[in-house]
């Protein structure tokens, strides 16, 4: 596993095989879009900014399950609150350690973490030339220009 993402807590709980596949997808995308016309590259970067990361997918999943338990618990039988309790218990575990039962499933489906999405985004930005000419004549670039380059 790569050292630069070792602190990504979802990756820590991703099977080696799933991680290899996720990375292979990222590499394939970078190689594919790097040589496309500028407009296609721009569109891909915009698309990456809209890509749903694993936190968003897990939050949607958890809130639907827990809300179903709470509605049924309030309206039908209070034992349904145990579903809410279990889901929120796992969400707490996810927030603190990075793992909860649906993580392996979503990872196997190729859902990426924000850090993984940003690897592709910033590789494509570099290949688009966003970070070129920031350093003029070996001088240090200005903070404002670097900021502008990463925000663009």
């Amino acid at each position: 596993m790569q050292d630069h993402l070792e602190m990504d807590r979802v990756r820590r709980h991703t099977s080696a095989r799933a991680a290899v596949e996720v990375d292979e997808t990222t590499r394939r995308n970078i190689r594919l879009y790097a040589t496309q016309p500028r407009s296609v590259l721009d569109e891909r970067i915009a698309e990456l900014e809209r890509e749903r990361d694993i936190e968003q997918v897990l939050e949607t999943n958890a809130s639907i399950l827990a809300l179903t338990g709470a509605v049924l618990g309030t309206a039908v039988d209070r034992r349904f609150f145990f579903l809410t309790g279990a889901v929120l218990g796992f969400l707490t575990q996810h927030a603190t350690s990075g793992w909860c039962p649906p993580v392996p499933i979503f990872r196997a489906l190729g859902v990426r973490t924000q850090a993984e999405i940003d690897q592709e985004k910033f590789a494509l930005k570099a290949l688009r030339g966003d970070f070129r000419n920031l350093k003029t004549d070996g001088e240090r670039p200005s903070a404002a220009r670097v900021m502008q380059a990463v925000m663009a």
Partner: protein
Amino acid sequence: MQLRRSDEPDRVRRYTTDNQLRRIDGKTERSIRLYLSQSPEVIDERIAELRTEWSIERFLQLNVAAVGLSTALLAVTRNRNWGFATCAGLAFFLLHATDGFDPPLPLLRQLGIRTRAEIDREIYALKVIRGDFDDVNPPAEPVARPEVERALRAVGV
């Protein structure tokens, strides 16, 4: 409720006020300025620190778990009407997951808590400063393998 930026792809930034965005981005830019004159080793340390910075999603997940678990417990042991509070909290969290807004969001943003994408922008700005992208140029020809492979190495994939 504040305005919704319909053209903003980041769902948390979508519901952050202009003032808060200025402060959060200003903090990132100040950090970039500070590390411009630092050695690569100091920048390495800062990047490691940024990787472990808590993103706003973790705070929001813990918040909804605390609210939901406590009200669900009261609904089971005391009065079932507490269940309405559980439902409200979870409905807001579903709204957060899909569109972005969540009641604790304005407070957390006021405190300067960042999204993962915002933290990653600082990480990549520091990598640019460190020179990770110095050898990465746009491919001159349709198929320029070395450039692309250098970009892969620079982001570490």
